[in-house]
């Protein structure tokens, strides 16, 4: 195991993390995975700590996953869902943050529809902030659980070919995966219609292709993004059936790919839109394992940021370390 120390009170994205830090999270998650297999699926590591799930954007899966993770660490969990419309008129983001801080919470798990919101937030509070998705920017724990699943199934990340298919332009999952995977030595290819690859994409360490068969040919895994045709309204979007024809993950396409290609999806699934039911439920699919692993990864993240914050505070209060 790596000897890197984790010193960040927040997890805002994977772009800023070093390879060693990502490996530390993955290694920690591995030990936490065992906890969920016990009869008593609970350890007291975060006993007495309060985790606030602050969601400015509806999301059941991510919120529930964080809630389960926090509870398995014995933390108390408070869920706050904020209607974005009311935020605009009422309380500012910073006010919301300082109010939660005044409740003496310890960790805020935050989902927001504006890119960078978690970062702005973290600058204004001394709570730990875990980014559970900000706009199109990053969704670090999703990428970490994707990578964890890949590593568990294929034994390594270094040298793997991973293809990400879908709306790359508007995907925080894609961005976090590209950073994480490339830092660990995987080769990432993104595949989408031209209009869904954003300008200046060269900034990312990833190949671009518009041909799915080509992208699948060498892939060890394919991560299928959820397509949201209702999004935006202004930018050009492909027609739904045409998208499925050209970019849908179907049995025929998987049959032509590597035999053991892993099929991943961050959920919720749009069956028949970006992935066929046969593939989603088929033997190459690890979609449900991703959900299970999400808990271990989020436990690891919650544990690490809470530790880092506690230690920072202890040092600030000049508590002398003792062995």
């Amino acid at each position, binding site marked *: 195991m790596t000897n890197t120390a984790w010193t960040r009170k927040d997890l805002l994205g994977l*772009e800023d993390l070093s390879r060693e830090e990502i490996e530390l999270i993955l290694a920690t998650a591995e030990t936490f995975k065992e906890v969920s297999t016990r009869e008593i699926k609970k350890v007291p590591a975060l006993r007495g700590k309060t985790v606030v799930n602050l969601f400015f954007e509806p999301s059941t899966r991510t919120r529930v996953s964080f809630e389960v993770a926090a509870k398995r660490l014995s933390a108390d969990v408070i869920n706050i869902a904020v209607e974005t419309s009311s935020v*605009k008129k009422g309380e*500012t*983001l*910073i006010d919301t943050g300082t109010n939660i801080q005044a409740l003496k919470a310890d960790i805020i798990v935050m989902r*927001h529809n*504006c*890119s*960078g*919101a978690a*970062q*702005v937030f973290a600058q204004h509070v001394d709570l730990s902030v875990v980014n559970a998705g*900000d*706009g*199109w*920017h*990053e969704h670090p724990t999703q990428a970490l659980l994707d990578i964890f699943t890949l590593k568990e199934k294929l034994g390594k990340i270094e040298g793997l070919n991973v293809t990400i298919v879908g709306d790359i*332009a508007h995907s*925080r999952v894609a*961005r976090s995966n590209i950073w994480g995977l490339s830092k660990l030595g995987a080769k990432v290819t993104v595949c989408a219609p031209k209009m869904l690859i*954003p*300008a*200046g*994409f*060269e*900034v*990312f360490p990833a190949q671009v292709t518009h041909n799915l068969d080509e992208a699948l040919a060498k892939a060890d895994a394919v991560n299928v993004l959820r397509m949201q045709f209702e999004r935006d309204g*202004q930018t050009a979007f492909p027609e739904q059936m045409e998208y499925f024809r050209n970019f849908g993950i179907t049995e025929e396409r998987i049959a032509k790919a590597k035999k053991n290609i892993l099929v991943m999806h961050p959920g919720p699934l749009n069956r028949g839109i970006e992935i066929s039911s046969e593939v989603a439920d088929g033997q190459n699919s690890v979609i449900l394992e991703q959900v299970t692993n999400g808990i271990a990864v989020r436990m690891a993240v919650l544990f690490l940021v809470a530790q880092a914050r506690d230690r920072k505070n202890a040092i600030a209060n000049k508590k002398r370390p003792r062995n």
Partner: protein
Amino acid sequence: MRLLIKNGRVIDPASKTDEILDVLIDNSRIANISKDIKNGSSQIIDATGKIIIPGIVDMHVHLREPGREDKETVLTGTLAALKGGVTSVLAMANTNPAMDCPESLDILKQIIKKSAKCNVYICAAITKKRQGRELVNIARLKKSGAVALSDDGVSVDEKVLFSKAVKKAKQSGILIICHCEDLRLSGGGVMNLGAVSTRLGLKGIPRESEYKRVERDIILAKETLGSVHIAHVSCKESVDIIAQAKKKGAKVTAETAPHYFTLTEEAVSGYNTNMKMNPPLRTQADRQAIIEGLKSGVIDAIASDHAPHTVNEKDVEFDRAEFGTIGLETSLSLGITELVDKNILTWPELVKKFCLNPSKILKIDKGTLRAGADADIAIVSADKEWTVDKKALISKSKNSSFLGRKLKGIVEYTICRGEIVYKYGIHR
């Protein structure tokens, strides 16, 4: 009252002066500029080692009054101007009410008369309520004292309407200032479209939204034989289009703002909302093109686009923050630091961009130090360094892109109509 400024390096591009001279001010006007003017019972400023320039004419300033006095007022804005060596500002029309009728102008003129600390010129709107639907009465507004017209903040989308505005402006002898932006292309964008917006997951503003509108406005102006001034040029293509048009004899002038020759889109990393402005900070290549444009003369003037916003409007999610940075207090120092110190412009060239050219474009009698001119003067220590500190800013709003930045050049004295209105650190 007589005031004698001794032994300063007098830079006045209008008279091609650049030498150590004395300046005698008598009763709000410059009485004499020559060597060794004898002191005849006047107050004396020793300007040895300092630079004496005409007071800066900043032709792009949002004073926010009337309507948004929480952001800035004529008083606070003009005090900030004096600190930056600025003695004349052109106040933009996007106030509330907008400057679209003589009655609104009268309100502003009253405020100016009561509280302005430097010369304030008024830019009226092109269309009523700046909505792009109905032209204002240009002749009447000119008569009421407007020196330019602009819907700044938005462009006039309707071609026919815009052409008509240029034609009428020409008849009235008033300048049209173009905010060049095609909202159909830029709508919803919050920063330059490109590598950084993609990395940060922010919606981009394509450069086309600016330069296509620059192109259109110049073409329409040419068709109507009128002239236009392009505000806040930020990208390379705009510079190229203006250069081409000028070469072909089009009557077009252009300005840029200090942030466009100093910063790039990279500054947005970290979601710093003080780096959010419209047009947005562009790429290094654009910045270079702006610098070249200043050097070659394609860009005639530097104006701050001073755009104050309250903490509430800036300390929010990047998507929701207002566009703009304040600039009156940092403009000259940025010119010195980024252009003169880096040997891009000489001092006389810099003074042209800040003082003489804006005066010529606006057809106002400012920006020069010749004998008989209004005694609007800034005395500058070019080598003194300072750090932009939020607490020391005079402007009512503190949304500066340059907080924490070390700059060269401080204003020692600002003299407006013969009076010392600012002496380093102290307003009078």
